[in-house]
């Protein structure tokens, strides 16, 4: 994706966000019932920020429209597969496993799975692959044990 296309798409999102914020600020309760000074209404700064963001979005659109098509690329110098697997594992751990399973088990599973997936060598011998899995399992257990002990015993945090 070219940077100018990405910028135009972002400008639309930011413009919508800015206008929503401005409208949100304008329609916000003005607390007349509490007889506050009209210049200190809670929606004043959100209104200004929303308008400023919409203005910046407009300028961003104009800059992007002027840029040449052969300009810089974005989201091009990495691996989508690695990104998707990393984001997937992290999201499952943070949003599903933590709070659903005891912290020790969720952490052990996440760490071991992450390490095993990214250190997996498809072409390697069975022995190397088995060793890699063993290292991942040990790492998962050690990280789960270490963080649980540190936060629960030392910092007295009630783990999720």
């Amino acid at each position, binding site marked *: 994706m070219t940077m100018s296309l990405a910028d135009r798409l972002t400008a639309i999102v930011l413009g919508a966000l800015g206008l929503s914020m401005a409208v949100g600020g304008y329609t916000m309760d003005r607390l007349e019932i509490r007889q506050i000074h009209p210049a*200190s209404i809670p929606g004043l700064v959100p209104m200004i920020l929303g308008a400023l963001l919409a203005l910046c979005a407009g300028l961003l659109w104009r800059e992007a429209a002027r840029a040449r098509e052969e300009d810089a690329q974005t989201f091009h110098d990495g691996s989508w597969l690695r990104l998707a697997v*990393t984001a997937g594992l992290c999201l499952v751990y943070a949003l599903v496993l933590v709070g659903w399973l005891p912290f020790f088990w969720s952490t052990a599973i996440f760490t071991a799975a992450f390490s095993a997936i990214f250190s997996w060598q498809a072409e390697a011998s069975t022995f190397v692959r088995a060793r890699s899995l063993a290292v991942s399992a040990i790492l998962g257990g050690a990280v789960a044990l270490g*963080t649980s002990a540190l936060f629960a015993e030392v910092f007295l945090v009630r783990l999720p």
Partner: protein
Amino acid sequence: MSALTDLAAAFALLLTPMMLFHAAWSTLLGIIIGSLPGLTATMGVALMTTLTYSLDSTSAILVLLCMYVGAIYGGSRSAILLNIPGTPASAATALDGYPLAKAGRAGYAMGLATVGSMIGTLVGILLLVLIAPPLAEAALNFGSFEFFWLAVFGIVISGQLTADTTPLKGYIAGILGLMVAMVGSEGIHAHVRFSFGSSDLAGGIGLIPAMVGAFGFAEILNAMWGRAGILATAKDKSDRILPTLSDVWRYKVTSIRSGIIGTLVGIIPGVGEDIGAWASYVAARRTSKEADRYGKGSHEGLTAAETGNSAVVPGSLIPAITLAVPGSASSAVLIAALFIHGIRPGPLIMIEQPQFVSQVGAMLILATLFMGLYGLSLTRAFVQVLRVPYANLMPIVFVLCVIGTYALSQRIFDIWVMVAFGLVGFVLRQMKYPMAPLVLGIILGDLLDKSLRRGLTLSDGDLVPFFTRPVSLVFVVIIALSILANFASVRRWVTGILARAEKRDA
């Protein structure tokens, strides 16, 4: 002189076994974090904030400062050995450090970087203890009008100087940060804004979860997206690590100038160590007699870059302590940590805790001493650290991101905030939006909001005092010039005026 006496007294008080122990492990951890590409100083300080909240305030602040100093210095390790800056602050270091490493002199380059970093931090500390007290005193005269412009100034300058491509993206990042700060109960009438009926949002979005997400989770995604995770280090055949005295003495002017430039860059809100390093490097190259050697393994270039980025650390603490306006992204986390530990940064600091500035200076000296000790003694051991594969390192970092953000207030909501900021932070980074103005916006949002509305209430809705009070006027002029300088037509107009004036003089 009294500032230096206070500094010496504060340093003597820190020399207890427990404080030395804390300084020793946290500086070492900072160097390790800084040296690993993908882990930044800000991430280290943010994660460490969540790990130190059960310590007493002095120990916690010592740990955080040592982590900060160590991480900024640690970035030079991978910059020299791998040509990959461990932190963005070390990008300039790689220019001359890596050619030296390729020539088999990695050890000597690391020694030179260590001494440069020590000099930079010490120059910065000296300026911190000399500048901070009078600045805090001057800030006591600031009213709502001045604080409003100070917040705007921070966002504009940070947006301007940290943007990679166009300053517009820096401004947008700053405005987004300010908008995040608008969520939750506001500070004047306690009215809840943009909570959409959620009791979690009514409490506002915490800085620490947001920063751990933007600098921790986003970094993990960035690292896993970008690199294969297998690092190959340069071989070291150095005959010595400790720089020769003649080398250090030869570059004394460069060191001191870079230290001063770095500190001044640090004072500018939201402008971090990377700008300090580049500004020092460019200034040194411009005045150097060996400018042609820059980029090919120049000792002077390496010294300038390392002195410059390390001096930003104490420099960034000057506005952070005296005005509660962070000089860098890492010092923004430090401000949040200070509040957690019951210390209120701002103009009243010199009245409420007059010894605090010298205490911070003394902690930085201790961190510098440990940094020097590790830097000169563990040179080869750090090479092993760089060989830890991402597959094993990144899950540990993410576990700490999750449990660290949860531990602060024990709310699952904070984990969601961290994840959301990580995902958004990754996308914004890919699209060249700087993160520092975003963080600065979250910190300064409350100050800007309250100052504008208080100022308008005081002036009965009149905007004139915002432009006529002397300090406000200075801020307005600087802000206007910074924004106008982005327009090509304005630049052409100013250049035309200057050219005509020159012609007339000739």
